[in-house]
């Protein structure tokens, strides 16, 4: 509003008074309308979501990329899901019971849920999904959690009892895995069709997939939670970030994720303020530099700690995220209960970094201004993947800052497949990457010392016996309070060891056409209540019949 009254308009203001009246009455009518509208939710309209990536497969247990998971999430349900406060609640399971020793989970399934072809959902479907998950012929990447199951028993049509070989805390969350219909997937060939024409229990029915352009879903009338308000969901694939944004600007899209630049600069005009709503919340993921701990330079904890002082995270957040993110201090994000608020990031302090480096033997500089030890210049290659603007910029800023303390950084940007290969073979000094996290804090696969074989995820070869023990414990204990203590300690220990230099937790920055209502941001984002979003009748843009 402030831009309406800049001082230089004061003189002309007199002539504008009638217009102000008109304007305010207009505003008021809008306000009234909105108020009136918010009372009566309406069905109808469509939402057009824009995405860079195209789903790979819609078979839930194979869907590993975010685009596939997005669609699968609308067409299918798991037994459990996370609510807006990131608590596990029942989805297809009405409730569950965990035995005292933590070895048995009994799920009580919801009755009367129908697959989108009309057949009733029962325990057989859960068993079927489990069997497919552990079948060696299935190309699923997610078999790991389910291989810990010793016994799977169907008690009756709506009760299953699952026994684990050892207590496994993330087990409950793993049953967020979408359940597939047993009756539709009897033969191997059925999967082929199903991957492009899925049928689930979810709020949206699959309609059509136009390869490379869009996927269309339609509200499922008999959805057990009630029919979603928005009739149609279109997932448009636009592989170029700038085109995606321009298409939003042309109002051809209703919902995309913004880049920080787009959020801070490109959407700050009246056009966007009038037609769109922006949201901002911390994402569940962080960006880090992983140091190859087998490299003699980075084996020394002091060197890694020096890096933590020499890299100005605030500057990176300002330069790369334009302030839209938080400094990361460890393997958990601020919204997680595992996050230890007592771990405080140090301020940018190049002197301290130089002291630490000197203590580690890097105390002389050569003519070029780089640190030298045993006749060797402090030089390393920072590896990251192609196609990620933020990581590229981040690398450039780090390169500049480390140069100031006398470290020469060579940036190497390679395609993803190459990067994985280099990491598998451990032929890297340092990698700049990000982790997307699940809601459960278990990070055994990333930091446990047993997970250092090629293709496993502790590729920096981190080893700390205390952390190992705690990670094992954290998986065995179910009580949130006890786990919290364990993970807070893990957070502290890992931060102290600095196997990674933790950089930032970026904000998720969705933008949505202003006509959509019912959006309630929470720490779990905005998508959790998508089926409750709606558009007032007079604002509906797409009238659909087919």
């Amino acid at each position: 509003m402030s831009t309406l009254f800049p001082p230089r308009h004061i003189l002309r203001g007199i002539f504008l008074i009638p217009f102000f009246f008109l304007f305010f009455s207009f505003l008021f009518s809008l306000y009234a309308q909105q108020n009136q509208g918010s009372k009566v939710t309406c069905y109808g309209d469509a939402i057009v979501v824009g995405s860079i990536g195209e789903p790979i497969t819609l078979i839930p247990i194979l869907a590993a990329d975010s685009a596939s998971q997005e669609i699968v999430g609308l067409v299918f349900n798991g037994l459990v899901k996370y609510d807006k406060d990131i608590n596990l609640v029942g989805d297809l399971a009405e409730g569950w019971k965990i035995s005292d020793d933590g070895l048995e989970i009994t799920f009580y399934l919801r009755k009367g849920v129908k697959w989108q072809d009309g057949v009733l959902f029962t325990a057989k479907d859960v068993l079927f999904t489990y069997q497919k998950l552990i079948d060696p012929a299935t190309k699923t990447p997610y078999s790991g959690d389910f291989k810990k199951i010793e016994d799977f028993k169907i008690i009756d049509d709506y009760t299953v009892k699952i026994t684990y070989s050892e207590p496994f805390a993330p087990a409950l969350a793993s049953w967020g895995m979408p359940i597939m219909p047993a009756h539709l997937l009897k033969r191997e060939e059925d999967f082929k069709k199903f991957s492009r024409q899925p049928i689930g229990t979810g709020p949206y029915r699959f309609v059509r997939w136009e390869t490379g352009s869009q996927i269309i879903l339609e509200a499922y009338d008999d959805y057990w939670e009630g029919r979603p308000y928005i009739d149609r969901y279109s997932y448009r694939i636009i592989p170029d970030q700038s085109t995606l944004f321009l298409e939003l600007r042309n109002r051809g899209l209703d919902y995309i994720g913004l880049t920080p630049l787009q959020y801070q600069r490109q959407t700050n005009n009246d056009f966007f303020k009038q037609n769109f709503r922006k949201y901002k919340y911390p994402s569940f993921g962080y960006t880090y530099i992983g140091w190859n701990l087998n490299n003699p330079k980075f084996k020394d904890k002091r060197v890694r700690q020096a890096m933590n002082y020499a890299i100005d995270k605030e500057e990176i957040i300002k330069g790369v995220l334009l302030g839209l993110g938080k400094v990361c201090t460890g393997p958990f994000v601020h919204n997680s209960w595992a996050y230890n608020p007592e771990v405080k990031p140090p301020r940018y302090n190049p002197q301290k970094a130089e002291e630490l480096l000197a203590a580690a033997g890097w105390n002389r500089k050569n003519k070029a201004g780089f640190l030298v030890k045993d006749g060797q210049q402090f030089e390393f290659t920072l590896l990251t993947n192609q196609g990620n603007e933020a990581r590229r910029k981040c690398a450039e800023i780090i390169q500049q800052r480390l140069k100031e303390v006398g470290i020469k950084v060579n940036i190497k940007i390679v395609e993803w497949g190459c990067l994985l290969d280099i990491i598998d073979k451990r032929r890297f000094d340092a990698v700049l990457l990000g982790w997307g996290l699940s809601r459960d804090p278990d990070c055994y696969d990333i930091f446990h010392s047993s997970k250092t074989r090629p293709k496993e995820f502790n590729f920096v070869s981190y080893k700390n016996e205390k952390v190992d023990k705690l990670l094992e414990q954290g998986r065995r204990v179910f009580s949130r309070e006890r786990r919290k203590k364990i993970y807070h300690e893990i957070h502290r220990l890992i931060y102290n060891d600095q196997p990674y230099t933790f950089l930032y937790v970026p904000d998720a920055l969705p933008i949505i056409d202003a006509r959509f209502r019912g959006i309630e941001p929470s720490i779990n984002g905005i998508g959790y209540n998508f089926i409750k979003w709606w558009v007032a009748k007079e604002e509906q843009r797409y009238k659909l019949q087919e």
Partner: protein
Amino acid sequence: MFSYFLKRLLNLIPLLLGITIISFAVIHLAPGRPAYLKEMDPRISLEAQEQLIKLYDLDKPLFKQYLNWLKRVLRLDFGNSFVDGRKVIVRIRERLPVTLLINILSMVLIIVVALPIGVISALKPGGLFDKWTTFFVFLGFSLPGFWLALLLMLLLGIKLNWLPISGLKSFDYHQLSFWGKNLDIIKHLILPVSVTAFGGLAGFSRYVRGNMIGVLKQNYIRAAYAQGINKGRIVYKYALKNALLPLITILGLSIPGLIGGSVIFESIFAIPGMGRLLYNSAVARDYPMIMGGLVIGAVLTLLGNLLADLCYAWADPRIKCK
């Protein structure tokens, strides 16, 4: 003629074999491993990853993989994509029509626009028209295509809002009438087709101009002038016909581009074509998909060249079949 054709056809076989061996070796030896996900996911277990490798045959020695591949290809089975497990052929079939449509349209546009430009500027080399078109032609040669695409998109799509900027169909496409549907697709095609055509426009008009000037100097044209034959007739009937002969070769040579599509334009305009498919497959190290794309492309290219040569031989009596 027939035996010549047969011989040429047989010659293609070692060539094709060479292409498959080289490309198989190159893409398998290139650093990097199949990766259909763009980020790491700690939930994916090592066992699962190794299982994938076994399922895909990647643990076998390279020549064995190649022989297996070759065996399957001889039965016209290009295998399944690593990425989504669907048949390579099916994925190509989905993408090819759009790419062909755009490229053929732009080819037509090139010919329709460049031919008159070339001919008219050849009539008076150094004249005003020639000078201007020469300048524009050089501008066309020098423009980065994607830059032009961005500028046009910004101008016609955003500022003036005349044309849609991405995709091939509007959201309400399925509700449009028959003519509405066609109009919708045409509108979506204008930008990509003209941008694709632009690069070729310059080269082709230049080519026509050069040939035309050459032909107009030939004795038989001079003779025709001397006989007092009407100028228009000379130019359009005798000269143009001969100047256009090399066009056949050009068309033959442009086949790889025709089916290969363009990654950059397809990404900018969000068009689901071959360029993006092959690029993504290469980046994901989706070996069967890349091999399928390359082999099919190579076969079509070689056949195209052969066909062009044959047409040439047929149309130009000066060329004798060896």
